[in-house]
């Protein structure tokens, strides 16, 4: 996190705000809710309180403005600049302006008002832009489902540096952004996709081409706004050019970067019994068309051609994959090998000799 130059801050903890005007893009009740929720993001983690007033001068005046609105920071029409805010202080200090030329929404289309308002309020309270790509105070817009939003730890650290801790007896904590070369890095799921590797972790995924050194960390929501965070298993069916992503008892199907169905499907449609509540890992064997699903210490085998589970499963993982115990986090096939991820370690398994031939760090693909 970065504090604003000169460390400006509000000297009072009880601040007022006013919504000066409304956007025609949303109904006013939804604007009120989005703004109120944005204030709550900061009041939950600091000793600050925010009271709405309906006329007169509030500490934080929030308005929708167009083009040059006489504050020396003109807006630029659709996209580009979305909003801005002024650091704590009198007069225009603390005020928040939204570019009316944007399409404001309460969902994932256009720009989500709650997310932008929460970011701008960070400025109004004395925070500058963070270099942490997962932080709310990162300069560029990225969508997160508002109901799943949790203020990242980087922003909590920032606001608490300025105003101290929350008055709550239990201090709130927030998600941290994974560090690509962290030796303790673990993955939720790994899959191939059209020659690239996708590594899933929380609300992020890394994209890596095996022959290129660069690796790219992205929000899952940037590519697939309707997908949840915390994908638990993933595999690619090369024949059908589809990637399957699993969370709890649901799965989503991707074709390239498009979702095949708008709604998730049930894993029970694949033939799992009802006592299976989630899948830990999966991979598809390109040579046989069989998909292996790992659940606890057992695995199921699914025939992609027949679209049905093979008879005689589940079996114990240890019987087929010697050296691989239970709790497989992720798996994928690359060339002649299967790679199993368990905690911070990665096991390279050769199915021809049926044994582990190499053990590496989980992030060995990232050229750390």
């Amino acid at each position, binding site marked *: 996190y970065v504090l604003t130059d000169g460390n400006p801050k509000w000297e009072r903890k009880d601040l007022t705000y006013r919504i000066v005007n409304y956007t025609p893009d949303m109904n006013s009740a939804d604007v009120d809710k989005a703004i109120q929720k944005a204030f709550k993001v900061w009041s939950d983690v600091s000793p600050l309180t925010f009271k709405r007033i309906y006329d007169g001068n509030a500490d934080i005046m929030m308005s929708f403005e167009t083009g040059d609105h006489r504050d020396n920071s003109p807006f630029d029409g659709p996209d580009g*600049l979305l*909003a801005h805010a002024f650091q704590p202080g009198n007069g225009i200090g603390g005020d928040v302006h939204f570019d009316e030329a944007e399409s404001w929404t309460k969902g994932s289309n256009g*720009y989500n008002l709650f997310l932008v308002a929460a970011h701008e309020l960070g*400025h109004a309270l004395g925070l500058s*832009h963070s270099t942490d790509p997962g932080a709310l105070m990162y300069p560029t817009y990225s969508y997160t489902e508002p109901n799943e939003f949790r203020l990242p730890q980087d922003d909590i650290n920032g606001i608490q540096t300025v105003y101290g801790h929350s008055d709550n007896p239990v201090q709130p904590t927030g998600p941290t952004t994974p560090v690509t070369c962290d030796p303790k890095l673990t993955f939720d799921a790994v899959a191939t996709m059209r020659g690239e590797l996708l590594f899933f972790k929380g609300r992020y995924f890394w994209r890596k081409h095996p022959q290129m050194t660069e690796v790219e960390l992205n929000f899952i929501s940037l590519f697939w706004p309707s997908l949840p965070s915390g994908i638990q298993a993933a595999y690619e069916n090369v024949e059908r050019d589809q990637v399957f992503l699993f969370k709890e008892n649901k799965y989503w199907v991707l074709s390239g970067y498009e979702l095949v169905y708008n709604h998730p499907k049930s894993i029970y449609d694949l033939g799992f019994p009802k006592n299976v509540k989630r899948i830990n890992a999966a991979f598809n064997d390109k040579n046989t068309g069989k998909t292996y699903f790992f659940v606890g210490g057992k695995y199921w085998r699914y025939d992609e051609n027949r679209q049905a589970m093979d008879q005689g499963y589940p079996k114990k993982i240890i019987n087929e994959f010697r050296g691989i115990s239970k709790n497989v986090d992720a798996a994928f096939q690359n060339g002649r090998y299967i790679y199993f991820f368990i905690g911070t370690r990665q096991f390279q398994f050769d199915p021809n000799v049926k044994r582990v031939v190499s053990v590496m760090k989980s992030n060995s693909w990232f050229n750390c």
Partner: protein
Amino acid sequence: LPVAPETEDEDKNIQLVENYLRNFYKLETDKQSHFKNKNVNSLTEKLEEMQAFFGLKVTGKPDVDTLEVMKKPRCGVPDIGQ
């Protein structure tokens, strides 16, 4: 004569880079400068600063990844020194 599309794109990119660095990284240029005069060093330094901020490869050149970030929707508050 009509401007060749690639020249037009290049001009747009130069404009984008200059505007972006002026708005968010305190680049001071006269409007004629582009990349060809005394402000080149300053522009390169600011570009490096921007690339470091966003965790991009620091090249001091407006490469594809840098332009991609500059085209993203964002907050209007500068990244350095409000």
